[in-house]
């Protein structure tokens, strides 16, 4: 337990000194702040158009439609985060996972570490714990920025219910990012250099983020990014009908769908919708456990005597 904490702390210390990590963190936090700004901007534009329309319709003696924002969930102003997390956040998570292994390799200290009384499982859990803490801190910072953004847009702080949903969204995002951290760890363990490990992990990220949503939604052109639920499939070919059966285990699709529900107050995520929530959460949890088990096995069986300083 103590060794696990020592290794986790060391990983966090190295991350805090890494320019790559810090740069990507700044980009993610910047995009989070931008997400609020985009929400505020679209909110203001729609209200302005609505006000003009109301004036015109009133002058013409025609009935006035209701304010569109009267029906729009206030949290959905942060919908862009459902795009930024799988894009920038996942890349950041891959860097975190990759560095957890290659940081020791570059320093040429892996052999020293395993010549000390360090169990391989302690090493694995230390790396995962350090990465999870880093992810949690990043998500907490994003949550804080989102709360500030919503407060400014809505001219008042979020309600308790909104805060719970927002926290649940970032907790889900943290879990989703842990998946990519583990992809980063596994790729680093399977390859011999940092650049190759990063390249392999980014290839998997592209597959999950861009290719899988297309195949599991019948080549729906906007499926790779936007959290649109139950649209009409574009392709009805036999191939895409077959691939669309994999949608329940497409983690990106499930993350987007569940996130979208969390940010839409009309949806019951627990209660009556608990079953649907569980089926959307299950594939993410399954792949986290699968990759975690794989990474643990790779660390347990690896010949660390071969690890010399490189890259």
């Amino acid at each position, binding site marked *: 337990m*103590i060794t696990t904490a020592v290794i986790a702390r060391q990983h966090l210390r190295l991350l805090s000194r890494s320019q790559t990590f810090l740069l990507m963190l700044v980009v993610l936090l910047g995009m989070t702040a931008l997400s609020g700004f985009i929400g505020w901007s679209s909110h203001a534009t729609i209200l302005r158009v609505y006000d003009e329309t109301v004036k015109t319709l009133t002058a013409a003696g025609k009935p006035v439609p209701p304010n569109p924002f009267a029906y729009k969930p206030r949290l959905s102003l942060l919908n862009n985060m459902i795009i930024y997390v799988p894009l920038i956040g996942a890349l950041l998570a891959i860097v975190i996972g990759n560095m957890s292994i290659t940081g020791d390799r570059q320093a040429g200290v892996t052999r*020293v570490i395993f*010549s000390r*009384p360090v169990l391989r499982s302690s090493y694995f859990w230390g790396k995962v714990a350090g990465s999870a803490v880093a992810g949690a801190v990043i998500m907490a910072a994003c949550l804080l920025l989102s709360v500030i953004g919503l407060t400014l847009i809505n001219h008042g702080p979020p309600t308790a219910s909104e805060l719970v949903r927002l926290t649940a969204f970032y907790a889900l995002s943290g879990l989703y990012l842990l998946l990519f951290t583990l992809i980063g760890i596994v790729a680093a363990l399977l390859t011999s250099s940092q650049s190759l490990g990063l390249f392999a992990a980014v290839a998997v990220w592209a597959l999950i983020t861009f290719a899988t949503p297309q195949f599991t939604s019948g080549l729906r052109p906007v499926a790779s990014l936007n959290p649109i639920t139950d649209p009409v499939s574009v392709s009805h070919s036999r191939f895409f009908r077959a691939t669309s059966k994999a949608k329940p285990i497409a983690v990106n699709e499930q993350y987007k769908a569940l996130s979208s529900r969390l940010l839409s107050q009309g949806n019951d995520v627990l209660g009556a919708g608990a079953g649907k929530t569980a089926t959307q959460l299950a594939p993410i949890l399954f792949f986290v456990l699968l990759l975690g088990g794989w990474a643990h096995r790779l660390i347990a069986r690896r010949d660390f005597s071969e690890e010399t300083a490189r890259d």
Partner: protein
Amino acid sequence: MNATAEGPTSAAGPAIELVSLVHRYGDVEVLHRIDLTVATGEIFGFLGHNGAGKTTTIHVLTTLLKPASGSARVCGFDVVEQRLEVQRAIGYLPENVRLYDSLTAAENLRFFAQLSGVDDVPHAIDETLGILDCRELADRRVGTFSKGMRQRIGVAQAILHRPRVLFLDEPTSGLDPMGVRQLRDTIVHLNAELGITIFMNTHLLSEVARVCTTIGVLSEGELIYNDTLENTLRRFPDEASLEDIYVRLDDQ
């Protein structure tokens, strides 16, 4: 502060014992039934060409590799059955260790001290840097260090927990003459003042002649010679230097 494991052997017992040690990489046997004993308090020089199996032997002794057959004991502990006890009793400086560039020397040392279970980490770091006469490096980032400075901090990480046996793999590799001299003095000091048994892989015969008390020569995975330096020089009176003796042993 001292986290060193007390071994089952007395101080006078052997620090290292290899009995019919065999190691294979796949189907290739790289260590052939090595029998070797290093007494406590020795500075043992392990000589051999590149690829002779010196580093593999150290990897077995530092628990990084499991032997295919035979046994290896350090301070009386079996490297397979009593791995944690061996790890608590040893220090290890691999060849080409860089350490974490973005951290200071003290931060690097704190990590390894904590891994080794050292109780009073700040005191251990300060004392160890004092022994190595490099306290001024403590708060500097390792990324700014010369090879010699890195090597001193590398030695520091290996002795923070006051090991009973210290393994050094080509410790003078890449050092300038001044760095070599400093490291040689450090090795002698660690052995004489702290009583650490030292097992050193090297192919620099001049270093062996100056520092080691016992030598072993490994050739293509076989231990072809093992004796004290004094006996070695007496046994080969016609040879001008240790280098000549080494060449003759290798030819045989």
